[in-house]
C-alpha cells in the first residue's frame, strides 16, 4: 500500500447523497481479476451514455473540476461490499473522499487501500461543495499527521481517524501485515477453543 501523508489538491464536487457502490462501479464491470484498471468505469452510468459517449453534465466530464479529493454528499459508499469501489476511486486518482457520513464497509475498504475517508460536519461539507462550485481551482490541504483539513488560506478543521488506521496509512502498512505478526496468538486461541 502507498503511504499517505499530506495531500494538497483541488477538489471534485459530487453533492449526490447515498451514493451506493453500484453507482461507483456497476456490477457488470466487476469481472476483472486484478485490482487495476477500474478507474475507467468509475461512476460509469452517470459518466457515460449507453453508447459510451460522455454525459457533459457529470462532474468528471467537466474539465474545470479535477483533483485528488472527492467531496460527496452524505452516506457515501452504501450498498454492496465490493472493494472494487475503493479501487476504482483510487485508480482514477482520488486519494481522499470527504463526506458527512460514510457507510461502514466502504470506510474500511477505503482505508485498506490507501484511500482516506474524511468525515466532516454536514454544514461544513455543504459549504465546501458550494465553495468548490464557485471556484473550481480552490486548493485544499489534507494533513493526516495533524488530522486537519483546510482550504488553503482558510481555517483548518480537525477530523477523526482511528490511531491504528492512521499509522497504517502513514507507513503504508496494511492489516494483513499486522495480522500475520499475530500468528502465535491466533494459534493459541485455536488451541484453547477446542
Amino acid at each position: 500500500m502507498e503511504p499517505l501523508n499530506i495531500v494538497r489538491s483541488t477538489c471534485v464536487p459530487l453533492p449526490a447523497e447515498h451514493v451506493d457502490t453500484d453507482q461507483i462501479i456497476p456490477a457488470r464491470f466487476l469481472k476483472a481479476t486484478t485490482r487495476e484498471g477500474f478507474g475507467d468505469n468509475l461512476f460509469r452510468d452517470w459518466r457515460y451514455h449507453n453508447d459510451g459517449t460522455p454525459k457533459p453534465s457529470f462532474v468528471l466530464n467537466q474539465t474545470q473540476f479535477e483533483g485528488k479529493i472527492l467531496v460527496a454528499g452524505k452516506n457515501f459508499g452504501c450498498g454492496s461490499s465490493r472493494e472494487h469501489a475503493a479501487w476504482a476511486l483510487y485508480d482514477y486518482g482520488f486519494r481522499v473522499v470527504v463526506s458527512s457520513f460514510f457507510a461502514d464497509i466502504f470506510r474500511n475498504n477505503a482505508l485498506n487501500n490507501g484511500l482516506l475517508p474524511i468525515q466532516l460536519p454536514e454544514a461544513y461539507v455543504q459549504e465546501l461543495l458550494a465553495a468548490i462550485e464557485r471556484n473550481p481551482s480552490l486548493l485544499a490541504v489534507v494533513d493526516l499527521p495533524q488530522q486537519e483539513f483546510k482550504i488553503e488560506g482558510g481555517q483548518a478543521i480537525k477530523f477523526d481517524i482511528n490511531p491504528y488506521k492512521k499509522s497504517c496509512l502513514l507507513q503504508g502498512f496494511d492489516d494483513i501485515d499486522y495480522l500475520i505478526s499475530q500468528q502465535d496468538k491466533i494459534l493459541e486461541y485455536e488451541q484453547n477453543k477446542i
Partner: protein
Amino acid sequence: MSGKTLFDKVWDQHVISEIDNGPSVFYIDRHFIHEVTSPQAFDGLRKRNIRVFRPDQTVATADHNVPTIDQHLPIKDKLSRFQVQKLAENCEEFGIQLYGLGHQYQGIVHVIGPELGITQPGFTIVCGDSHTSTHGAFGAIAFGIGTSEVEQVLATQCVLQRKPKRMKIEVNGPLAKGVLSKDIILYIASKISTSGATGHFIEYTGSAIRALSMEARMTICNMSIEMGARGGMIAPDETTFEYIKGRKFAPKDAEWDQALEKWRQLYTDDDAEFDTSYQFDAADIVPMITYGTNPGMGIKITETVPDSPDNTKALEYMGLTPGELLLGKEVNHVFIGSCTNSRIEDLRLVASLVQGKQKADNVQAMVIPGSKQVEQQAKQEGLDKILEEAGFHLRQPGCSACLGMNEDKVPAGEYCVSTSNRNFEGRQGPGARTILASPLTAAATAITGRITDVRELI
C-alpha cells in the same frame, strides 16, 4: 453489571486481542468465497508468498457471474468464464472445497451455507458479499467484508474489526394473511431508512420473528445491510435446531448434544442493554413495495408515492410522480430469486399462488432457484411443472438479475417487480427500474401484469 446481549456473547468469544484504541483481532469460524470478490485476494497471497491458513474453514461456490441456462455448457461470456475458471484454479492451488458450476451443492453462497449445515449458531461467518448478514438468522455473527479482508481471513483466519453498537428491533403480534417476512423487513427499512442502522449490529426479536420459519428469518437478516447495519441476528431456538439437524455438515451424535447445550446459551440476558431499540406492531404490516432507488424507500402497497424534495432524483429515475398509486401499474418483468427469496419455501409459495393460472402476456416472469438443491427439491415436488404451466421461466441457480452481472438483465426504462434486495439505479441492468416486493406480491403481479395486492388473490 448488566447482562450480555446475544451479540456480545458471540463477539466476546471470538476476540483474540485488541489493539489500543483500534480494532480487535477477530477470529472467523467459517468463510465463504465466490468468484467476484476473491481473485484479488488470492493474488495478494501469491505476492506475499503465503498459503491459506485454514483451508478447511473456507468454502467456495460460483454464483454471482454464472449463466442461469445451459450451465452444462462452457460459459459464453469470456470475462465471466475466466473469473469462474480462476476461482477453480485458486481453490485447487490453495486446497479449498469448491462447489462449482454443475456441482450438486452449487448455488448462491447465502443459500448453500445454511442448507448444507455449514452455518451454525454462535459461529462467526464472513464472505466478500454484504448479504452475508443472512447467516445471522441462526444466531451467528455474520457480515460482509471487502476483498482485502478476504485476504486477511485466507492468510490468518482473522479480520481486524471494531465492535459495532447494538440495536434491538422487536416485532410483535401475528402477521396477516398474504404478509411475508419480506414485507416485515421492507416495512422496517421504510421506517428506519437506508442508513438508520449504520454502525450497528441488529438483533431481531419479538413474537412475530419467533413465529417465522428459518427461511423466513434468513430473509429478514439478509436485508439488515439495507439499513446500513453490519449485520443482523436472531437468537437460535427449537426452530433453528430442527432446521440444522441432519444436514450434511451439522454436528452428529455426541457432538450434536454438545452443540445443542452450547447453542441453548445463546440468547440476550434479560438485563442486557442495547444502544438503540425499535418496536413495531405486526398488525401494521401489509404487503410492501418500494418506489425509489434505495430499499428504505418503501410504502404499503395501497399507499401513494410520497411527496418529498428528497425523492426527486429517485422518482425521475423511476419514472414516477409524487401522489401516484403504484397499485395497478403495468409491469413487464417479474424476477423471483436472489439470496433474499429463492429458497424452497419461496418457490412453494409462488407455485401455490400461480397453480392453475396463467401469467399475463405483457410480463416475462423469471424464477431462479437459490441452489442446485432447491432446484432438485422443486422438481421433486413438481413445482417446476406448475411454474412452467403458468408461463414462468424456471432457470438454473445463481445471483442472476439480482445484480445483472450475467445476461439476465432488465431492459432500460422497464419496471421489474423483484424479490431481491436492492433497487439501486442500474442494479438489474443499466436504466432498469426495480420495485422490491415479496415473492407473493411478485407472483400476483406476474399473473395480472399489474402491481397487485396479493390479498385480493388469496
